[in-house]
C-alpha cells in the first residue's frame, strides 16, 4: 500500500495521461472536455474512473473508453482500470475547461 502522497502523485500522473485521450468527433481531449468526473487510485493496483460522454447516444463511446484503459495500461501494465460510465449529472458546456473552450473557439 502506497503512502497518501504517492497515491496523489500517481492520480496526477494518470490525469496527465488522460490529456492524450481525444474525443475523435470533437477533436478535444476528454479532460479539457470535462468528461472525467472522478479518478481514484486505491494505492495498490486498482484505478476507478467515473466519466461521462457529451451525449448518451455518442457512437464513439466505447472507443473512448478503450482508449482510456489502454493509455493507462501502457504506463501501468499491472493496474486494473475500472471505467464507469455515468450520465448523472449530465455533461454540459460548463464542464469544459478554459483551455478547452479556447481550442473549440468558444
Amino acid at each position, binding site marked *: 500500500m502506497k503512502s497518501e502522497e504517492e497515491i496523489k502523485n500517481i492520480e496526477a500522473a494518470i490525469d496527465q495521461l488522460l490529456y492524450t485521450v481525444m474525443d*475523435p468527433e470533437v477533436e478535444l481531449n476528454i479532460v479539457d472536455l470535462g468528461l472525467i468526473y472522478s479518478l481514484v487510485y486505491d494505492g495498490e493496483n486498482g484505478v476507478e474512473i467515473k466519466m461521462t460522454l457529451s451525449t448518451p*447516444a455518442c*457512437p464513439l463511446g466505447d472507443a473512448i473508453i*478503450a482508449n482510456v484503459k489502454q493509455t493507462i495500461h501502457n504506463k501501468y501494465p499491472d493496474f486494473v482500470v475500472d471505467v464507469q460510465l455515468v450520465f448523472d449529472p449530465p455533461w454540459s458546456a460548463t464542464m469544459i475547461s478554459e483551455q478547452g473552450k479556447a481550442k473549440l473557439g468558444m
Partner: protein
Amino acid sequence: MNTLQTDNAPSLSVVLPPFVIGALAFFSLSLLIIFSGADILGPFYNGRLLAITHLAVLGWATMIVFGALYQLIPVVFETALFSEPLAKASTYLFTISTAFLAYSFWTDSFSTILIYASSLMFFSVALFVLNVLLSKKNGKKNIQSRFVTTAVIWLLLTALFGLLISINFTFPFLEKVHLDYLKIHAHLGLLGWFVLLIIGVSSTLIPMFLIAHQLNEKKLSGAFYLINFGLALLAIDWIIWNGSILVYFYWLLISAGIFLYLSFVREAYVKRLRRELDIGMKYTIISIIILLIPVALSLLILVQINFEYTLLMRITTLYGFSIIFGLITTIILGQTYKTLPFIIWLYKYKQLVGKVKTPMPKELYSEKIGRIQFYAYFLSMASLASALLFNKILLLEFGSYFLLLTAVLYNVNVFKIILHKIKTEGL
C-alpha cells in the same frame, strides 16, 4: 452502469453496401441527366424524368438512408438492429428492384414490366420497414424515434401507392387519372418518408455534432403532429375530393410544422459550442435552409396566379427538384462526411486506440476534394434550378456536367474512406 451504443453497432457488411450502391447510383443518375438532355425540361411525367427521379430518390437517397439508418438505429433507438440477414436481403432486393424500375420508366414500359418492378420494390421496402419496426419494439421511445418509425410507415404507403399505380397501367381499376395518384405517391414519399426521417435523424445528430444542449424539444413534438396530420388529411382529401379548398389549411399545418423544426435547428445552431462548421455541417445547415424553397413553391403552385400551363409544369418540376436535390441530396452529401468516416474509423481503429497513434476520422477523406465538390454541387444546383425555371438548355447542360463532377468527386472520397488502409505510428 449504462450500455454503450457501439455495443449494438451492426456489422460492416450491413452498413457499407448501401453507401457503395448509393454512391454509384448518384454517379449513374448524373450520367442519365446528361443523356436525357431537353427531356428534363418537358412535363414532369415523362419516362426519362421518372427514371431519373426514381433512381435519385430510391437508388441514391433511400439507399444511403438505409446504410445510415442501420448504423444510427443504435443511436436513435438505443437498441440493436432486429435482424442483419433481413437488412442484407432488403438492401439487395431493393437494389435490383430500383434498377428494374428505372429501366421500366426509361424504356416507357409502363404497361408491361413496371408492375413486376413495383411488386419487387414493395416487397423489399416491406422487409426494411419490418426490420425497423421490430428494432423499435425494444428501443427507446422519444420524439426522434417516433419520427423515424412514422417515416418508414409513410415509405411503405408510398411503395403501396406506387404498386397500385403500376397495376393500374396493366389492369385499369382506379377511378382517377394517373397524375392524381402520382401527386399523392410523390408527397407520401417526399414529405412523409424523407422530410420526417430527416427531421427525426437530424434532430439527434445536429445537436450532437454542434454540441448544443438544453434545446426545446416541444418544437419537435409540434412539428411531428402538424406534419403528420397535415399530410394524412391532404392525402385523404386528394383521394376523395381531388383537392378541396381545405388544401390551403393542410398546407398551413405542414408549413407550421416545418417552421417549428427550422426553429429547433436554429436554436441548436445559436446554442452550439462548436463555432466552426466542417464541410459536412455546412452542407447540412444549407440543406435545411433550402427547405424554405419547396414551402414557398408549393404555395405558388396552390395559388396559381394565372400561370401558363408550361410555366406551371416547370415550377412543379422545380418544386420536386428543390426537395430531391436541394434538401435531400444536399443533406446526404453532408452527412456522408459525418457518418461514413466514423463507421470505418471505428471498424479499423477501435482495437488500436491508445496502443498506437491513430488518425482522426476526418483524416480518412480529402477535405480539399470535399471543398471542390461543395462548390461544384452548388454551381450545379443554381444552374439546374435556373434551367428548369427559365427553360434554358445551355444552363441545363452546364449544370449537368457540374453535377457529374460532383458525383465523381463524391465517389472518390467515399471510396477513399471505404478503402482506407490502417495507418499507425508508435506512441
